[in-house]
């Protein structure tokens, strides 16, 4: 039987996507708490918000950067890896999103070195020590997945699934869904994730960056909220 994904690589993808993996994602609502505080999302509009964020925010920004960085690592083009990360960081308008990307990325880098210890991780750590990169999570994830031999398409799918799972988890804690509906919402996002993966794989370096003005406004308000449960 023709199996395009080696089982060991698939297992690393599952491990990195599992909610038990210490990614720090459970502290992020990916903008949802800002919408909730503004009463701009309801249980019925929750799936649409997730789909919009996938298509217009995470897809063009993080997923695209991940795809480009993965290809660059595979091609041993580290200048391109640096360029991808610089552009991704520059296009993240909100402080919370930038900070979250760097905090989770640095910790992933540190942990992945201990868990997987691949040559690309070591190379990226060298760039980090030299100050050439910041440790943005999508780019670190690309380095880790590429080093583990997980193909780019599956790597992007894994990260978008992790985002969607984290989003519905936050929705549950914000009482915008329950544990059963959350799984319906998550499965309902599958076609959008597939569409978003395909679009991310088609983009080039200058295309990196989402366009979600309302979400940016909500994120700005969230930064100044008196009370928050989530870091984004």
């Amino acid at each position, binding site marked *: 039987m023709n199996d395009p994904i080696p089982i060991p690589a698939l297992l690393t993808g599952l491990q990195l996507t599992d909610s*038990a993996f*210490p*990614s*720090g994602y*459970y*502290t*992020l*609502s990916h903008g949802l708490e800002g919408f909730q505080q503004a009463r701009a999302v309801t249980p019925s509009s929750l799936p649409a918000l997730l789909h919009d964020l996938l298509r217009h925010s995470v897809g063009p920004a993080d997923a695209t950067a991940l795809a480009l960085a993965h290809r660059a690592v595979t091609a041993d083009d580290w200048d391109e890896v640096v360029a991808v990360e610089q552009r991704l960081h520059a296009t993240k308008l909100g402080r919370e999103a930038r900070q979250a990307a760097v*905090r*989770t990325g*640095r*910790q992933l880098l540190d942990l992945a070195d201990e868990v997987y210890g691949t040559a690309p991780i070591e190379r990226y750590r060298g760039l980090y020590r030299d100050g050439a990169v910041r440790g943005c999570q999508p780019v670190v994830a690309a380095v880790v997945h590429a080093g583990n031999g997980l193909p780019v398409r599956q790597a992007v799918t894994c990260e978008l699934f992790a985002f969607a799972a984290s989003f519905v988890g*936050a929705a549950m*804690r*914000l009482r915008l869904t329950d544990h059963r509906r959350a799984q319906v919402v998550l499965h309902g996002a599958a076609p959008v994730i597939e569409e978003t993966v395909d679009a991310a794989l088609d983009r080039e370096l200058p295309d990196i960056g989402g366009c979600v003005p309302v979400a940016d406004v909500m994120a700005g308000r969230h930064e100044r909220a008196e*009370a*928050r*449960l*989530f*870091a984004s």
Partner: protein
Amino acid sequence: MHDPMQARHHHHDHDELMRRPKDGVLRVGVAGPVGSGKTALIEALVPLLIERGRTPAVITNDIFTTEDAAHVRRTLAGILEADRIVGVETGACPHTAVRDDPTMNQAAADELLERFPEVDTLLFESGGDNLTLTFSPALVDLFLFVLDTAEGDKMPRKRGPGITECELLVINKVDIAPYVRCDLAVMESDAHRVRDGRPVVLTNSLTGEGLGTIADFLLSHEAAQETASA
């Protein structure tokens, strides 16, 4: 009163693999139910640590983020720079933030130490609110668990990993025990019993009673670990 200094310093006998790599920074977790006095204890402890030559910083994990950090900042104004006290959002999962996935606490610690490399003592306050809370050994060197008399003298008997696993159990607010029908002698003896003789300290954070013992315990714990790893 039982003397914590006479008790074993590291009852877990953690395998070497379970110990956080040494980097010269003492990391201390402060856990306990909501309202037991964790924040007041930290506010009283920081000046004592400074008196003992330490350079502390504080990371608070709160349900609604900056509330505790702001309180500590106000109380410690003039003693500890506001920038050395940071709040970590826990995504409504304070237990996860210090036990299962301390990623964001580690990130906050890394950033604090990058900005203030002279810091040698980090206090992590947890917003975890039940008796099962423990700290990841990857995040802290040891942790305190703070109970208070108003919760009732039954609390130690409920056990829970927080009470039985912590390096030092604190029974706080000893001054109000008579007013909340708490038999302090029962609470203390039960605490010793469920902890198999490991250290317990009685405190009143508002008068400072017992706080010096905690500060000395933390520093002697560190010294014991350094000796063990030498």
